[in-house]
Structure formats: structure tokens, C-alpha cells
């Protein structure tokens, strides 16, 4: 009775919480809730906390790279062993415990039921279980820093035989904890994904056809499907690796009939689709924002969906571009070069559609819009540098250099960090009922964007100059010890410090506005989608009266209407019918 689950009933929207009436304990309200919005917040705050940890780890190892051998303030001395753990856990955290929970789980949970006009996910309790498993996995990962031998340091790709044997990686416990944590994280997202997919398929409001679903919902659902289809083999691989580590099997041990390359295939068969799992929700968020602030219909809604599907399908046949020189049959590289370059075609179209959407608009440069536009501008750099890597002949040189590092930070940072800030600043009024401060928001924006480019542009150059990845100190490599390169490394590290400093503006803005921000009202951005038709923050059960949908989500500046927006659930009045 006292569980928040009661909120799932339709009555909740109208009266919400009367104090004293529903005696809801802190535990039940914040930790044991099945409400999709609360679970979204759990994912969001956990992801944000881990983002800060991942950022801190990056700060530590970048300091070591800029000033090798010096004690890092706030950490201590970075030994080679610790360097490897720092990098490995940084990469793992940022992808699995920041990008996925924030972009897929937090936004997916918050937006899907609201945007498709229903009260919750189809399986609220599975949803809660998903978060709990996720939290457990995060704790296991972090605990690995404390065990004997330290956290796993064999890179986020965890290639065996290094990852399979304690005598090789010197962190037998850490490597098993890493593997268990990642496997649990996969389970959490499989459960979450089931909910997203089935809710969107079955739970839509009456009248909402396939083509009326907001792009961000599509993107999160497609990302969930990609995840589900790609992660299966890696789950199998994780079981095998766990057995190799703990039970003495030899699946990846060449001395005993196994094959270390098998892991690489399983990993990248997942790993490449995974990067689109992170990219797509960010693209979806950006689509919602640019249409609202350009007051424009999306330029070719269907084109976006077709190209997304095409990207999704192609993403399953490009994985070996991570393994060109891994010892696979060299003839295979030719096939994968072709598929890899072809995947640029749908993505180009998608990006061009986004740019074209601005044409004829009336653009307001609010903070969320700045984030959304900068996503496009920065992702383009990350995307085109992928082409260098996809061309097998060029990848011989670039593979495992900082050029790759720069490439994927120019794709991941826009997706995970810029995309997250775009979404957060845009939906903050809906989530918390208050507006963020625009001035602080813009300071934070410019500080972050400039610092971000300052971190990673120099790394393209050090990469082209031959800096290899995962090296704690270049002292033994005279060619990489050129002073110019060291200066670039230092420039990059200064960028990290600036970037971290500017996050203070965000945190202050975030917490200050929770209490003191201007009240948002239902629809501060004059937007069309259904989440803006309910109070901010939405009550349990979301809709006082479940909506019916009459049109697509992007009807801005429709001719013949007084207002320049047209909510999806607004019925056509006889008057308007005449005008159309």
C-alpha cells in the first residue's frame, strides 16, 4: 500500500501526494521505487557520480603524462601498474557506467513513458531490478581498486592471454572483478532494454503511429536492439574468460587448443555496435533540441529513421576494423575496409539532415541549443577521423596511437558528455520543475567546449607523430621524447584542468536551480511532445488523463496556425480544420 507502486494507478496524476496521506519512507521513495522517473534519476545520479570519478582518473593519468614521475596532487605517484589500471578503469567507467546509464537508461527511462503517453514502463519491477544490478556492478568495479594486486589494468578491451592469467596481469582478483562487473552491467541493460523495446512497441498512446514517435525514443529503442543483438556473444565470451581465469579452462590459451583472437572477435562484434549504442541516443536528444529551438520540422523524419536502421545493420559487419593488424587473415581486412567506409554513408546523411533542419528556422541560442549544435560541430571531427582508421592501409600506422584516442574522444565526448549536457539542460525543467540559470549555463558551455578541444586536438598530432597508447612514460622511446610532443601533452593536460574547473559552474547551477530557479511551468520551451503536457515534475502516473495523439512530434511553424507549435495531443478544432 505504501509502496510507490501504487502510483502506477491512474488516479495518481490528479492529486499526487498529500502529506500524511501517503506515508512514504525515504527508502521507498528514492531507493525502492518502481516509478520510471525515479529510476531515471537513480541512473542519472549514479552515472554523474561515476562521470566525476572517470574524469578524476583521466586527470590523474594525464598529469602523469604531462609531468612524468612527479607526484600527482590529489593522488600520489603513478606507477606503471597503477597507470594501466587508471586507464583501463577510466575507459570502462566512461563507456559502461557513464555513457550507457545516462544516455540510454536515464533518458530512456525518463522519456519513453512520457513521450509515448503512458504511465510507466510495462514492467516497473524489472526496471527497478535493472538499476539494482547496475548499481551492484558499479560497486564491484570500484571495489576492485581496493583488492590485492589492484584494479585490472589490461585495457578496457581485456584481451587474453593477458586478462586470462594472474601471472601475466598481476591482478588476478582485479581482472575477475572487472569481468564480473561488466557482465552484470550487461544483464542490467538487457533487462532495461527489454522494457524500452516492449514499452515502445505496445504501450503507445492511442493514435500514435510509428511515424509519430519522437526520434529520441526511436534512437534509444534501436540502440537497445543493437545492444541486445551484439552483447550475446560477448556474454558467452565473458563466461569463457571467467572459466579461463578461475577454473583452469583454456578457451583462449593457444597452448591448449584455444585461440586468443576468438575473444577479439567476440569483443568487437559487440564493441563496434556498442559505439553506436552510445551515439544514437545522443543523436536523438540533439534532434529534439534543434527542432524546438529552430522552430522547425525535422528535415526528413523518415530519412533519419532509414539511415539509423542502415547504420544499425551495417554496424554488425565492420567489427574487424579494430583488428586489422591483430594477426587475422590479411584478406579479411579488405572486406572490412569496404564495409567500414560504407557506414560513413548513412551517418553522413543523418548529419546532413540535422544541418539542413536549421534551414529556414528561427534559431534561439539557448544553452541546450548550444550543446546540441556543438555536438554536430564536434562529432564531425570525430567522424571524419574514423575514415583514416577505416582505411586499412592507413590504419597500419595509426592503429593504437593517440590518433585513435583522439578519434574516439571526438565521438564519445560529444555523445556522452555533450549529449548528456544537452539533454540535461533541455529536460531539467521537466525533471525538477525549475529553470537552469542561462548565464551560468553558457559559461559552463564555453568553458567545457574550448577545454575539450584543447585536450584532444593536440592528441591527433602526438598520435600522428607516433605516440602509442597506454604508455605511462615515453622516456624509453627517444623519437617520442621530442620536446614539441611533450609540450602538446602538457597542453592537453592543462585542458583537462580547465575542463574540470568549469564543471563547478555546472554543479553550482544544477544544485542552486533546484531550489532557486525560476518555476518552469508545463511547457517552458513551447514544445510539441507529450512530456511537455504534464506538470513539471510529472506526478506518479504521469498523465491525469491519458493522452490521445493526433500528429507527429515536429509540427512547428505549421502554416495556418496562430501559434508556431502544435502539441501532439491537441485535437483539431473545427475552426482549424477549415483553415487547413
Amino acid at each position: 500500500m505504501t509502496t510507490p507502486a501504487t502510483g502506477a494507478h491512474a488516479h495518481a496524476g490528479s492529486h499526487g501526494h498529500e502529506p500524511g496521506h501517503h506515508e512514504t519512507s525515504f527508502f521507498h521513495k528514492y531507493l525502492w521505487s518502481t516509478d520510471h522517473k525515479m529510476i531515471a534519476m537513480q541512473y542519472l545520479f549514479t552515472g554523474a557520480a561515476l562521470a566525476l570519478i572517470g574524469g578524476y582518473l583521466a586527470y590523474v593519468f594525464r598529469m602523469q603524462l604531462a609531468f612524468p614521475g612527479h607526484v600527482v596532487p590529489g593522488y600520489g605517484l603513478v606507477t606503471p601498474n597503477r597507470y594501466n589500471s587508471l586507464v583501463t578503469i577510466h575507459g570502462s567507467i566512461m563507456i559502461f557506467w557513464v555513457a550507457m546509464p545516462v544516455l540510454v537508461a536515464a533518458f530512456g527511462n525518463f522519456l519513453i513513458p512520457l513521450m509515448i503517453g503512458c504511465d510507466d514502463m510495462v514492467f516497473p519491477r524489472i526496471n527497478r531490478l535493472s538499476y539494482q544490478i547496475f548499481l551492484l556492478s558499479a560497486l564491484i568495479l570500484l571495489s576492485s581498486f581496493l583488492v590485492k594486486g589492484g584494479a585490472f589494468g589490461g585495457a578496457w578491451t581485456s584481451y587474453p592471454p593477458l586478462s586470462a592469467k594472474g601471472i601475466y596481469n598481476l591482478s588476478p582478483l582485479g581482472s575477475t572483478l572487472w569481468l564480473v562487473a561488466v557482465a552484470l552491467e550487461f544483464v542490467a541493460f538487457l533487462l532495461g532494454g527489454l522494457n524500452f523495446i516492449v514499452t515502445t512497441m505496445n504501450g503507445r498512446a492511442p493514435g500514435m503511429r510509428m511515424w509519430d514517435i519522437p526520434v529520441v525514443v526511436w534512437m534509444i529503442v534501436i540502440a537497445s536492439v543493437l545492444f541486445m543483438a551484439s552483447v550475446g556473444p560477448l556474454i558467452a565470451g565473458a563466461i569463457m574468460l571467467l572459466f579461463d581465469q578461475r577454473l583452469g579452462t583454456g578457451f583462449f590459451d593457444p597452448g591448449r587448443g584455444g585461440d586468443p583472437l576468438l575473444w577479439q572477435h567476440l569483443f568487437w562484434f559487440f564493441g563496434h555496435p556498442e559505439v553506436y549504442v552510445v551515439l544514437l541516443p545522443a543523436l536523438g536528444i540533439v534532434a529534439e533540441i534543434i527542432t524546438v529551438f529552430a522552430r522547425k520540422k525535422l528535415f526528413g523524419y523518415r530519412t533519419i529513421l532509414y539511415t539509423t536502421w542502415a547504420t544499425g545493420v551495417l554496424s554488425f559487419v565492420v567489427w574487424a576494423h579494430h583488428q586489422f593488424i591483430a594477426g587475422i587473415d590479411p584478406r579479411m581486412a579488405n572486406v572490412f575496409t569496404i564495409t567500414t567506409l560504407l557506414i560513413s554513408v548513412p551517418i553522413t546523411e543523418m548529419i546532413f539532415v540535422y544541418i539542413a533542419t536549421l534551414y529556414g528556422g528561427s534559431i534561439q541560442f539557448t544553452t541546450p541549443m548550444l550543446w546540441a549544435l556543438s555536438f554536430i560541430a564536434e562529432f564531425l571531427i570525430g567522424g571524419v577521423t574514423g575514415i583514416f582508421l577505416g582505411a586499412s592501409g592507413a590504419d597500419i600506422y595509426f592503429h593504437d596511437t593517440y590518433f585513435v584516442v583522439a578519434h574516439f574522444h571526438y565521438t564519445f565526448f560529444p555523445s556522452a558528455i555533450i549529449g548528456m549536457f544537452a539533454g540535461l539542460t533541455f529536460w531539467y525543467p521537466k525533471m525538477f520543475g525549475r529553470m537552469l540559470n542561462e548565464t551560468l549555463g553558457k559559461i559552463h558551455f564555453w568553458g567545457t567546449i574550448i577545454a575539450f578541444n584543447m585536450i584532444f586536438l593536440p592528441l591527433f598530432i602526438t598520435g600522428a607523430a607516433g605516440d602509442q597508447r597506454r604508455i605511462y612514460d615515453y622516456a624509453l622511446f627517444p623519437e617520442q621524447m621530442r620536446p614539441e610532443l611533450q609540450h602538446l601533452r602538457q597542453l592537453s593536460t592543462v585542458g583537462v584542468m580547465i575542463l574540470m574547473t568549469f564543471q563547478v559552474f555546472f554543479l553550482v547551477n544544477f544544485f542552486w536551480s533546484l531550489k532557486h530557479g525560476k518555476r518552469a511551468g508545463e511547457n517552458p520551451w513551447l514544445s510539441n511532445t507529450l512530456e511537455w503536457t504534464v506538470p513539471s515534475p510529472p506526478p506518479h502516473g504521469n498523465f491525469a488523463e491519458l493522452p490521445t495523439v493526433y500528429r507527429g512530434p515536429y509540427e512547428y511553424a505549421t502554416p495556418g496556425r496562430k501559434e508556431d507549435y502544435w502539441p501532439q495531443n491537441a485535437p483539431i478544432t473545427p475552426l482549424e480544420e477549415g483553415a487547413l
Partner: protein
Amino acid sequence: MLERFATGASTYAPSIDHLILLIAVIVGFWLIVAEIALFWLMARFRRRDGHAPQYVTGEEKHLTKWVTIPHFLVIACDLVIIVPAILVWMNVKQTLPPAQETVRVFSQQWAWSFQQPGPDGILDTADDIRTVGELHVKENTVYHFELRSRDVLHSFSVPVFRLKQDAVPGRTIVGWFKATRTGTFDIQCTQMCGMGHGLMAGRIVVETPQQHAAWMKRVSSPALAASVAPSSDTAADNSKIAEVSR
């Protein structure tokens, strides 16, 4: 273009550099076009009083060309990149020119060691020269290398040669290079291989045939061989590893 950042010293280095230049020109062009379009639209259609936004679905016949034209152009550009990329790849990795010399490269945590034929020119005989951390090769000679690993994955990378190849335990992977410039260059390990990955350095010494012969004579004389084998560099590395391990 790459020459500016890293010297090239093998026969295929220029072809890889040209490929990179070609890609840079093509995608650079697109990048600039896209960024200019983005910023121009942002400036042109910023909110101004009296200018209402237009209603464009993007599905109108005369507008879809803005998607279809880039579509075909990008496919064309992809082809222009794919063909030379594959040609370069086949040259470097797929078709090996006949070997004039063969060396064996062994990788292990965390050192490189090499085995090459001694004065008799045949591998696996008593006079084979074994070195640690340092590989001596002749200029303008096609070398085949047989790459092996004794424990985990490593990667044999010589940036000036534009050469990189993972070493996989249980397999022997054969590749080739032909140096075009004398000098001493870095050998890197570019595959995460554990704690000492950052210490797994080596040097490759490219010599003229005369220098090489002189070197060979020096190391083949039994008295000296012992002192040369563990090269000074690597001995220092090993002590460093011991020192830093926690």
C-alpha cells in the same frame, strides 16, 4: 604530410603517407563544407523579429536532392579511398616480396629479442646471432620477419617504417620491410601487455652493408658475443622494471 611528424624510412612508408594525405584532402574538404554550412545556417537563420520560421518537411521533391546528392558523392569519395587503401594494404601485408634476409622477432613480457643468421647466412645454425632489445639490419634489403610471442599479445611497431603487427602466442606471423635510410630508430610495443608495456622498448639499427658486415664480425667473434647479447639498453630497463614494480 606525415613526414612532418614522423620520418619515413621504408619503401612502403611513402605509399602509406600518400594514402593518408589523400584521405585528409577528401574528408578535410567535407569537414570544411559541413562546418561552413552549419555555421552559416546558424548565423543566417538566427531568431530575428519579423522573420517567421518556414514550414519544410524535407520530403518535398526539390529538397530531397540535399540528401541524395551528398549520398552519391560520399559513396564516390568512399570508393576513391577504398581502392588505394586496399592497394597499399596488399602491398604491405598481403603480398610479400621474396626475402633477401630473414630474422626472427620474439616478444615477451617485456622485452624484444631477435635471432638472425650469422655469417653462414642460414637460420638455426650454431652461428646465429641473438640479440636483446636491438635489431641490426641492412639498408635496401628485403627482410622477412617471423614474429612470435612467448606469453601474451604484443605488437611489433616501427613508426619510421610505418610497420605494425601484433604478435600472437602460438602463431608465427610473417611480414616484411625494406629500410631506405640508415640510422637508429624506435621499436615500440603497441599492444597492452601488462605492467611493463610502457617499458617494452627496442631499437632498430639500419646500416649500410659494410657497417652491417662489420657489426656481424664483431658480435660473431665468440669472445665478444657474450658481452653484446643483452644490449646495454635492456639491462637498464630490467633494473627499472624491478624498481618500479610497486
